[in-house]
């Protein structure tokens, strides 16, 4: 019964929600329990889940998805500046504008497939990035990034309250500030909702048709499907996910920078998805976790911290270990990440999810063997030993 339950939508969602909401507990031992990183896990989780709807299901590799992340952020900050510090309109507008961008870019890019598609998306993202960084500074505030200012009109907020606040207001959900842990829980709830939609899409006929497009697009056409609108829908959905993620970046930290749209940002989500396991439901989330953990925690380990960590070793050995390890953490974190990419893909085609699958198979086999042995023993002892599976 258990297994079946956990494979049902309700079971999966329950398991997933518990895992996400208890992140502060189980991430504590590895030092990843603080609001900003937790928020980043959730936000980039949404980004990667959305990206996976396009890439994992249809196989179309967009190398410019960060453009929607950036658009989402800019829209959210503008909503804070012009309308209200309430996060709901910001999120709504971000998703709408990102969706509109996705329709436009997707409509053009989806005329081509394979690497031609990838380069088209890359080109749009790079153009957006370069323009946002320089020429569009009046809208984007260029290199510095778009920030709140005390002179912002904030029409809606000012219409309802004339209290003079010193300093900059914070983003809020009807009064609840969206920084720190409340911010994380807000993102986490949205992640759970986003995951739910993704789950439904994966398990729906629509999702299956997308997978069929990935498997054999020509066949799909001759089977009577107009594949272009399917692809465009997937593209727009994943664009809206990215817009949502972008808006949440601004919600938890109201600043939007152009580099969010650079190809490296697009590349990051590609790497996250492949690393975790493309086309799997939770794989991308694992990829997000690994890369963000490296970026934030591994990069912060310096030799002092290492000495603390390895203090249980004998002195000479401790120094040796710290010297060796220090090349791979701190400023060497990217080296370790690069090595990790290579090792994962060499030994685990299909990403981390494949590793988990293999491990669970090994455990299952082991358990099966053990229970077989046990059964043999118990069967010898008494004849009725068949409990339910």
């Amino acid at each position: 019964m258990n297994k079946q339950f956990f494979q049902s939508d309700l079971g999966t969602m329950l398991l997933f929600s518990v895992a996400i909401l208890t992140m502060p507990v189980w991430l504590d031992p590895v030092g990843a329990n603080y609001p900003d990183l937790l928020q980043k896990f959730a936000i980039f989780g949404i980004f990667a889940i959305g990206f996976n709807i396009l890439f994992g299901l249809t196989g179309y590799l967009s190398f410019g998805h960060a453009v929607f992340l950036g658009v989402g952020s800019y829209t959210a900050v503008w909503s804070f500046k012009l309308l209200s510090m309430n996060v709901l309109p910001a999120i709504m507008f971000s998703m709408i504008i990102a969706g509109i961008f996705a329709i436009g870019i997707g409509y053009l890019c989806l005329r081509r497939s394979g690497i031609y598609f990838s380069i088209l998306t890359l080109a749009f993202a790079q153009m957006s990035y370069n323009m946002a960084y320089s020429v569009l500074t009046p809208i984007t505030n260029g290199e510095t990034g778009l920030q709140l200012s005390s002179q912002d009109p904030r029409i809606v907020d000012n219409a309802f309250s004339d209290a003079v606040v010193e300093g900059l207001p914070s983003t809020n959900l009807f009064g609840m500030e969206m920084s720190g842990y409340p911010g994380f829980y807000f993102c986490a709830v949205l992640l759970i909702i986003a995951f739910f939609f993704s789950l439904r899409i994966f398990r729906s006929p629509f999702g299956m048709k997308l997978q069929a497009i990935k498997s054999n697009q020509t066949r799909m056409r001759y089977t009577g499907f107009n594949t272009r609108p399917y692809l465009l829908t997937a593209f727009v959905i994943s664009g809206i996910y990215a817009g949502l993620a972008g808006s949440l970046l601004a919600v938890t930290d109201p600043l939007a920078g152009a580099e969010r749209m650079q190809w490296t940002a697009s590349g990051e989500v590609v790497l996250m998805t492949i690393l975790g396991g493309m086309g799997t439901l939770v794989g991308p989330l694992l990829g997000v976790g690994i890369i963000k953990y490296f970026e934030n925690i591994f990069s912060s380990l310096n030799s002092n911290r290492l000495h603390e960590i390895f203090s249980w070793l004998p002195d000479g050995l401790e120094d040796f270990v710290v010297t060796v390890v220090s090349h791979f953490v701190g400023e060497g974190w990217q080296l370790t990440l690069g090595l990790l990419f290579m090792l994962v893909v060499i030994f685990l085609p299909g990403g981390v999810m494949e590793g988990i699958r293999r491990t669970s198979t090994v455990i299952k086999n082991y358990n099966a063997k053990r229970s077989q042995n046990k059964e043999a023993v118990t069967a010898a002892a008494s004849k009725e030993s068949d409990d339910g599976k």
Partner: protein
Amino acid sequence: MDVFLLQLLNGLDKGAAYALIAFGLTLVFGTLGVVNFAHGALFMLGAFCAVTLQKILTISKKVKDESITFFDAYKETPYLEIWWGDTGAAIIDWVIPISIFLAIPIMLLIGLSMERGLIRHFYKRPHAEQILVTFGLAIVLQELIRAFFGANPIPVSAPEILSGSADIGYILGMGADYLTYPWWRIIYVLFSGAIILSVFAFLQFTTFGMVVRAGMHDRETVGLLGINVQRRFTIVFGMAAVVAGLAGAMYVPILPPDYHMGMDFLVLSFVVVVVGGMGSLGGAVAAGFLLGILQSFSSLNEIKNIIPGIDQIIIYLVAVVIILVRPRGLMGRKGVMED
């Protein structure tokens, strides 16, 4: 007029670099079917061949500056100069041309071992996994270089006699000082032309090349003919590495190399390859020069005043237009990397 000619030269120069980098990339795409994100790193490694040679040649006798007491500051004189006088100085001066002879075997070795050790096992794997593994490799390579050479760019100059400018205007009879262009950039264009032509000739006129071209066209069939395609592919990868490495080594005087230069060129080289059309060597070269020249002209203030920021996006804009108008780039073949 002079501005026009100069921008044309700039475009050719840029195009030469783009074409050289894209050339190897598309060779690997076309024959091996591998998306190689570590190709930029090969370009960077080539540049660091020159840097390494310079470091070796300028191993110096150090005379301590006694006025400085808190740390060791030296006045350095390379041993080569001490031992061989002007000859030694000349050798150091000509480090870049000499480094070519170092770069060829080293890059070949790197290319061969990369193919044998890693790339080979990814022929049949999905592109996504090729991207991840080669990207990982690129990061590892650049971080290793950084561990040895630091993050700051390292200046290596062209030979003294070639660091000045050629007075092209005078040569063409337009009067002295009217049109000057750096010697080294002219050499770079000629050099890249020579390399591209010789690789073309090699592929065109040798049996090896014939098999490779056939392999680019239809790998399965060539494999069925009982030809050892595998070994040839290894060599092709080695060739691509050498071409990228030479492009890097020769580029050093123009752009002081640093560990990140491979990544900086990576995206651009992919755009060039795709605009040229997947699997087409000629396309890559044509696209390289086309984009180089367009980029140069769009950087003119006269044009930027009309369309602000055009110089920053021209490459991508042209790429979008070309791919949308011509489904497979300038000269791409059907079915290569379309799924």
